[in-house]
C-alpha cells in the first residue's frame, strides 16, 4: 500500500490538476478564465510526461564523461523531456492564438462574459 502510494502520489496530484483545468474550462463563464483552465490542463499533461521520465538514482540526460553511457539506468529517460519541449511550444502557440481571438472578441462585443456574449451575438 505504501509502495503504491509512494509510486503514484505524483500522478494523483497531476490528475487533480487535470480535473482543475477541465473544471475551469467547463464551468467558468469568463473566456479568460477558460483560457487559464486550458493552460493548467496543458501544463498538467506536461508534468505527467516529465514525472514519468524519472528513474531513482539517475542523473540528468547529459552525458557525464565519468559515468559513461553504457548503463541506461544512470540517466533519466530523455525522450519525454524532448516530447514535452515540443508540447510546451505547442501550448504557447495555442494560448497565443487564443489570446488573439479573445482580443478580437472583446473588440467586437466589449465583453468576455459568455452569457452576455451570447445575448449580444443574438441582438446583432
Amino acid at each position: 500500500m505504501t509502495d503504491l502510494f509512494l509510486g503514484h502520489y505524483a500522478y494523483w496530484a497531476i490528475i487533480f490538476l487535470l480535473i482543475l483545468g477541465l473544471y475551469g474550462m467547463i464551468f467558468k463563464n469568463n473566456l479568460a478564465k477558460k483560457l487559464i483552465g486550458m493552460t493548467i490542463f496543458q501544463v498538467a499533461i506536461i508534468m505527467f510526461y516529465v514525472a514519468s521520465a524519472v528513474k531513482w538514482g539517475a542523473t540528468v540526460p547529459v552525458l557525464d564523461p565519468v559515468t559513461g553511457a553504457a548503463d541506461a539506468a544512470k540517466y533519466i529517460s530523455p525522450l519525454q523531456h524532448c516530447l514535452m519541449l515540443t508540447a510546451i511550444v505547442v501550448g504557447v502557440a495555442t494560448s497565443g492564438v487564443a489570446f488573439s481571438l479573445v482580443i478580437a472578441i472583446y473588440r467586437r462585443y466589449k465583453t468576455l462574459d459568455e452569457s452576455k456574449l451570447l445575448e449580444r451575438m443574438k441582438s446583432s
Partner: protein
Amino acid sequence: MLGYKSNLIILMVSHVVSPFIMLFALYVIFHGHYSPGGGFQGGTIMAASLLLMRLAAGREIAQLQFKSVLGTPLGSIGVLIYFGTGFAAMLSGGEFLNYRFLPFAGFTAAELRSLGILMVEIGVGLAVMAILVAIYDDLLEGYPND
C-alpha cells in the same frame, strides 16, 4: 497607449540588462550541445530581451531595435533554415533531415550530425524569437484602445 509613462530608471536598467540577456540567449543556443539549452530556450530568452525593451521604452521607440513588420518574414526564414538543412541532406542523397548527407566535406558522420543539429537550432532560435515578438506586437496592436 494604455497610459504609458516613461520611467527613467526602468529605461536605464533595461538598457543595461538587455544586451546581457541577449548574450545569455546566444550562449544558451550555442551551448545547447553540452548543457541544457538549445534553440527554443535561447529563442525565448532572446525574445524576452526584445520584449523588455518594448515594455520599457514603448513600442514605437523599440521599433528601432526590431521592426514589427519583420516578425513574420523572419520567422519564416527561421523555419526555412531548418527546412533547408533537411532538404540539403535530401538533395545530396539521404533522407529528409539525415544530416549525415549534408554537403560539407571533411567531416565524419557524427561531426556532420553535430553540425546539422547546430544549424537546426539556429533556425529554431531565430523563428521562436521573431514569432514571439510578432505575437506580442499583434496582441498589442489588436488591443481595443478606441
